[in-house]
């Protein structure tokens, strides 16, 4: 760990002022950042501790949605009665993530900003374009069991590790931020993350010093919700593939479908073509197979993660069957 300066912020406004520097990072739960700092994958010169900011509330907003403070711990969010009742997919996703201890500490905002779990990103002696732009990617020709099959570039095949963000993507969440210039932005989660392209170090659209203050969920969607996570052990493992699904049926036909995927891409993955193919049609195994083929039309394995392609196909079909049964 590199020595760093440390400051506590007592308001969001103070935090963004303090944080307006490339070498400064905000810290809340620290469940990912501290590990990365120990390994010197992250080497901020300064930490601004935002854990005492009053961003701990989960409140209903006008029009029927919910506003979640960026510091709400994952455990609290998962257990919240409104979330459990109306946004079951989110509660399930949260509880499928990490371990009880980590969920108690990890914040809503921090969870969105988790870094990849790529083995080579964590090893400072390996080549990694995400960690050191331009150094290369050791993962593509190396061991890549947990890495991406969708949205990759020749520069990076990392996955985004969050479960929570996958559910939020399916729910069309909006990320609310405060910039260092005092500007508030409302960023749809679909616009929040970036594909790696030739800048895999840039993972989202946040600007220097910009702070996530809230996440807003739109009114609860119609239909059934589920979160299906497939992993290597029963708990405390990242998703090999996960599906956040919300599907409604009217008159025997699928009237709406919101599907997001974890473990497949550099961001919580969503593909409108897949949803459009389902809407207006009667549920059937053939239809679900068609949807899976659409989802995986550009999928590319890198050797040890090839199995994710058939695994995703099977998991999506089974999940859709469950949601439409």
């Amino acid at each position, binding site marked *: 760990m590199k020595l760093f300066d440390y400051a506590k912020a007592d308001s969001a406004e103070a935090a963004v002022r303090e944080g307006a520097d490339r070498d400064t990072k905000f810290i809340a739960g620290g469940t990912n950042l501290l590990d990365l700092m120990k390994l010197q994958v992250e080497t901020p010169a300064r930490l601004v501790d935002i854990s005492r900011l009053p961003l701990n509330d989960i409140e209903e907003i006008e029009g029927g949605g919910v506003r979640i403070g960026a510091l709400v711990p994952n455990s609290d969010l998962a257990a919240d009665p409104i979330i459990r009742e109306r946004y079951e997919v989110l509660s399930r996703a949260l509880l499928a993530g990490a371990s009880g201890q980590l969920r108690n500490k990890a914040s809503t905002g921090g969870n969105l900003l988790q870094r990849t779990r790529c083995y080579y990103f964590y090893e400072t*002696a390996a080549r990694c374009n995400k960690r050191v732009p331009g150094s290369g990617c050791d993962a593509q020709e190396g061991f890549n069991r947990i890495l991406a099959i969708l949205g990759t570039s020749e520069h990076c095949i990392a996955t985004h590790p969050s479960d929570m963000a996958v559910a939020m993507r399916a729910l069309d969440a909006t990320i609310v931020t405060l910039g260092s210039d005092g500007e508030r932005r409302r960023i749809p989660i679909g616009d929040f993350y970036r594909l790696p392209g030739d800048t895999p170090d840039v993972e989202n659209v946040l600007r220097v010093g910009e702070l996530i203050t809230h996440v807003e969920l739109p009114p609860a969607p119609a239909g059934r919700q589920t979160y299906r996570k*497939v*992993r290597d*052990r*029963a708990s405390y493992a990242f998703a090999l593939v996960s599906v956040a699904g919300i599907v409604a049926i009217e008159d025997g036909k699928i009237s709406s479908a919101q599907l997001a995927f974890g473990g497949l891409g550099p961001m919580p993955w969503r593909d409108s073509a897949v949803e459009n193919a389902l809407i207006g049609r009667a549920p059937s195994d053939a239809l679900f197979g068609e949807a899976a083929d659409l989802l995986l039309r550009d999928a590319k394995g890198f050797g040890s993660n090839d*199995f994710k392609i058939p*695994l995703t196909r099977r998991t999506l079909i089974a999940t859709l069957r469950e949601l439409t049964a």
Partner: protein
Amino acid sequence: MTTNALRMDKPVEQSLLDSGVQGIIGKGIERIDGPLKVAGQATYSAEYDFPNLAYGFLVRATFPAGKISSIDAEGAKAMPGVVDVVVDLKTFIRNAQQGGETEAPTQGVKDVAYFGEPVAIVVAESYEIARDAAQLVAVRYEPAEGVFTFDDHVDDAIKPPPGSMPPYHSQGDLDAAMADAAFTIDNVWRTPSQNSAAMEPHASIALWDDDGLTLYGSLQMPSSDKQQLAKSLGERQSKVRIVARYIGGGFGSKLGISPDTVATAIAAKAVGRPVKTVMTRQQVFDATVRRSNTQQRFRLAADADGKLTGIGHETLCSNLPGEGYFEPAGQATQFLYGGENRIIKHDLVELNRTLSGSMRAPGEAVGLLAQENAMDELAEQIGIDPIELRRINDPAQDPQKDIPYSTRSLTRCLDAGAKAFGWEQRNRTPGAKREGDWLIGHGMAATTRTNMLQPSEAAVSIGPDGRALVETDMTDIGTGTYTILAQIAGEMLGLPIERVAVHLGDTKSPPGAGSGGSWGAGSSGSSVYLAAQALREKLAKAMGVEADDLTLKDGHAIAGNRRVAIGELVGDGITATGSIEPGKQEKETTQASYGAHFCEVKVHAVTGEVRVTRWHSTFEAGRILNQQTARSQCIGGIVFGIGTALTEEAVHDDRDGRIVNHDLVEYHVPVHADIPHMDIVFLDERDPHANPLHAKGIGELGIGGAGAAVTNAIYNATGVRVRDYPATLDKLLEGLPAV
């Protein structure tokens, strides 16, 4: 001081533990060190503090093979808080030493042999500064050609020197037996590198003073570790003391000294201050001990009745050049089943991968995967119950050595276990039992673990307060040694357990067996037994009776109509030393513990996720000294076995041999949610050939065969045979029903 020495040349027909009346031996007494541990008062190696303590951090080579040309530490040395960067390419050890060795391990790090090899140590005022500075040390080198891939080099395998067993054994004509057999199995199994993943990382604190070196280290075998360390440093043994009072798991990875041990001692001397070094989890993976990967060809030949006529077990494993240690996968194959035509072979592929050495049940842990899967396949081919196949092939005596077993209860374990589990109600057709999306399967496997005795000494004293003290440099690595030694001394001396103190893990005490090879309880327990036996003689003398006429109970000596407090019989205190060593018994009898595992798994028909849902094991290991700690040992072993079957794999990058997933996030040991309730039963038995306790080893018994029971159950659930461990879901997908 009185010494009571015993060499196991003859069976000890009567154990005094059976005539003791204190009634604490065998009981499921809670760990006497438990309260200290849960209260944070048990001091582990990294938890001592000393005035002027400095912090060490190992600098690694970030290349897998090459000759160091220079180490540039100027930048690191210039950092505020850095005390020094200590480089000693000659004296640093290349890798850890194997357990029980009395020589220094391979020494000298100028020629780097594996990625992550420690080549220098930064000493600083804080751990964080030392760690940061270590990143700044530039290790310059001339690259050398390395050998990294196992599969491409199996043809270059060499015959290793003998280890815990000879590498080659052959009798009869296996090829002819295979040709003549009614039923045969001939398949190849693969197991990956593994890491012990003990909760406590390797750690050392070194202090030098006029008496020499004191090294607080997380080390399983202090007496031989002391010799290894002294030789590495060129010091006299009398100048080195090792303290290892509490150890947070070892599983073999702390049998010998490791690179931190020597580097910390060198650093402390160089800077003239005590130095503490704690390995990171990544360093534990990179630079301590792995279990070797193996490739095992296993052959079985059986006649029309299922009687084995031949067994072949040919293992390839890997290690660093020149190390010689091989994973003795054929260890149990030597004696578990009959069959007159036999080949057991081990060859070694030399690779630039971190050292391989002992990890829990070296040999059996992976060898029994192949053997017990092969037996399952054979039973299916013949069309008989796999228990029946094992019963048919339960030999009357050791099939290779033609000597009797000391005691052997394999068939009893199989029968009792089958009944307890409900084996008769098992699913009999692979893939036929489905509940919703889950396919249900049942599997079983046998286990065995060779029983070993190691030379061991202990001193036991009784003070005028009527309390006893046990002293030996034996260790408790989480197994329960503290507790069972107190139970043995208490039973022998008629003392309630709270009146027995046990001091372990300090080489100032008599040299114990150390913890390894499941020999700890039998070996160090026997030395305590013998010391206590000598004290009984003294107490009898003080009472004026023969020892046989003396009863010791609740702190009193009772003879005839007299009852005297023991403290009143010892004057200023009495002490005796007990000393045990192996003898002819281990040549004249084949000694091992046995068991049978039964499990139920469910396999998700869509995704291939496997969950173990039910478990029963019946074991026989001679006298059970403590029902509770023995049960915990068996459960721990089975959990290792389940991890081996389903998740554990240290993945080497083919380009440089490094372990890619060198942390506990991506090296998957089972978590609580992976483990069902464990139903564990011990058969009551005594083995007079093993030691005066009549107890056999148990620490490594649970792991053997456990993984095979899981994969046999996976086959039963799905019809998919996985011979390439671990059985992760990607290996099952193709064989699952279409969705």
